[in-house]
């Protein structure tokens, strides 16, 4: 192994997963042994609509390189309508982040059902790959605490 690969950039990624579908999908990925990079850390929330844009900005501020939100497929929300609100909120938030010049590859929403362990794992692999290619998040980070 060369030195370069040792110092390979490992992004910090926060994944918000709804308790009913996506968290269970992540569990299924686990019990099916479908690996994805350890860079992804999951936070359990009851529903995708619980995710406040503040949480996402906070994650970036504290040094996250990517944030992904996973919820039930539209129409399958455990609370009937939560993910529809989340969908609008995240569309607008992501559009705003894009507008102020934050690479849109750092944010993603994916609908993952409890049965989609495979999708969970491929989504995470893709997302980590994308964020890795974008490199460290320097635009939204609180640099003061880093250096």
């Amino acid at each position, binding site marked *: 192994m060369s030195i370069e690969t040792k110092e390979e950039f490992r992004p910090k990624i926060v994944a918000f997963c709804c308790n009913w579908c996506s968290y269970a999908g992540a569990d299924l990925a686990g019990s099916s042994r479908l690996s994805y990079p350890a860079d992804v850390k999951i936070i359990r929330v009851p529903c995708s609509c619980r995710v406040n844009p503040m949480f996402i900005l906070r994650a970036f501020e504290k040094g996250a390189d990517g944030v992904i939100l996973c919820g039930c497929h539209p129409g399958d929300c455990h609370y009937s309508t939560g993910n529809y609100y989340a969908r609008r909120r995240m*569309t607008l938030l992501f559009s*705003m*982040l894009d507008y102020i010049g934050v690479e849109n590859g750092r*944010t993603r929403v994916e609908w993952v059902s409890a049965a989609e362990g495979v999708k969970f794992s491929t989504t995470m692999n893709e997302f980590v790959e994308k964020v890795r290619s974008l490199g460290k998040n320097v635009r939204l980070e609180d640099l003061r605490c880093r250096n």
Partner: protein
Amino acid sequence: MQELINRAKELLADGTVARVLGWKAGDLPYNPEPAYFEKEEDFENFVYNGFCGANLSKYMIEASKLEGKTLVCLKPCDTYSFNQLIKEHRVDREKAYIIGVGCKGKLDIEKIKGMGIKGIESISGAEITDGADTLTIQTLYGEKTCSYADAMLERCHVCKGKEHKIYDELIGESKETKDAERFDSVAAIEAMSPEEKFAFFQKELSKCIRCNACRNVCPACSCRKCVFDSNKFDSSQKANVDSFEEKMFHIIRAFHVAGRCTDCGECSRVCPQGIPLHLFNRKFIKDINEFYGEYQAGEDTDSRGPLTDFTFDDVEPGIVAERG
């Protein structure tokens, strides 16, 4: 203006209203400020001219708690804010007597100063009864003139129209001022590369001194306690301590008013640092219109806001990346 004053006095006298909410002259010819008028003699200072940009809707939140009705003077664009506040149960329609005042476009003193006009002693041509064509300015260095339109606030160039959305009676004439497209400035930024966008907002926002003027003037930012002042999010802060916080503050502020912001433009008007804050709100409005259909906050008092509504086939957040 005299018509307005006379009518206000009349309504005060007959007890219809307990006070009048309008503008009084400031210490300079171009800085009138919102004020209550309760007695006949108070009206000596009453003004309504091209510099009365202040949106009085927000003052009605507190006025709604007072005894009796308050007469409030609302410009056409202010009525949108008032409607939105009714929708959010923040103002009491029964406690307000609304006089819809005419508007010929409001002036931006920074623009006048920007033309190199300094040492201003008085300004004429800004009265509501004037034609709003030319301003004549007496300065220490002699008389100067400029076109009214050139001195107008940005928001008046993209005016939503001179129709009052809610009122009890109308006084004064209006004049259409719209001569630009509302979303052009947003589209211009959208067309930039990510680096340019970032540089643009970095430059603008680093001017922010967190004076909170934008928040205090905004009719949608009417929370009893702002999240940035409470401990609910571990986000309370009084000043910027790092380069990110001003962005966080302005993004969250814009998000909190998204779907509720009427685009009244007060935030940009009051910013002492001249940051074009309306660019945030208007971006959300543009996206909302594009994604979920045309929506104008404050158009009515009962429709569902775009963020408290949905359709089964809304666009996916991935649209942001697809759009490129």
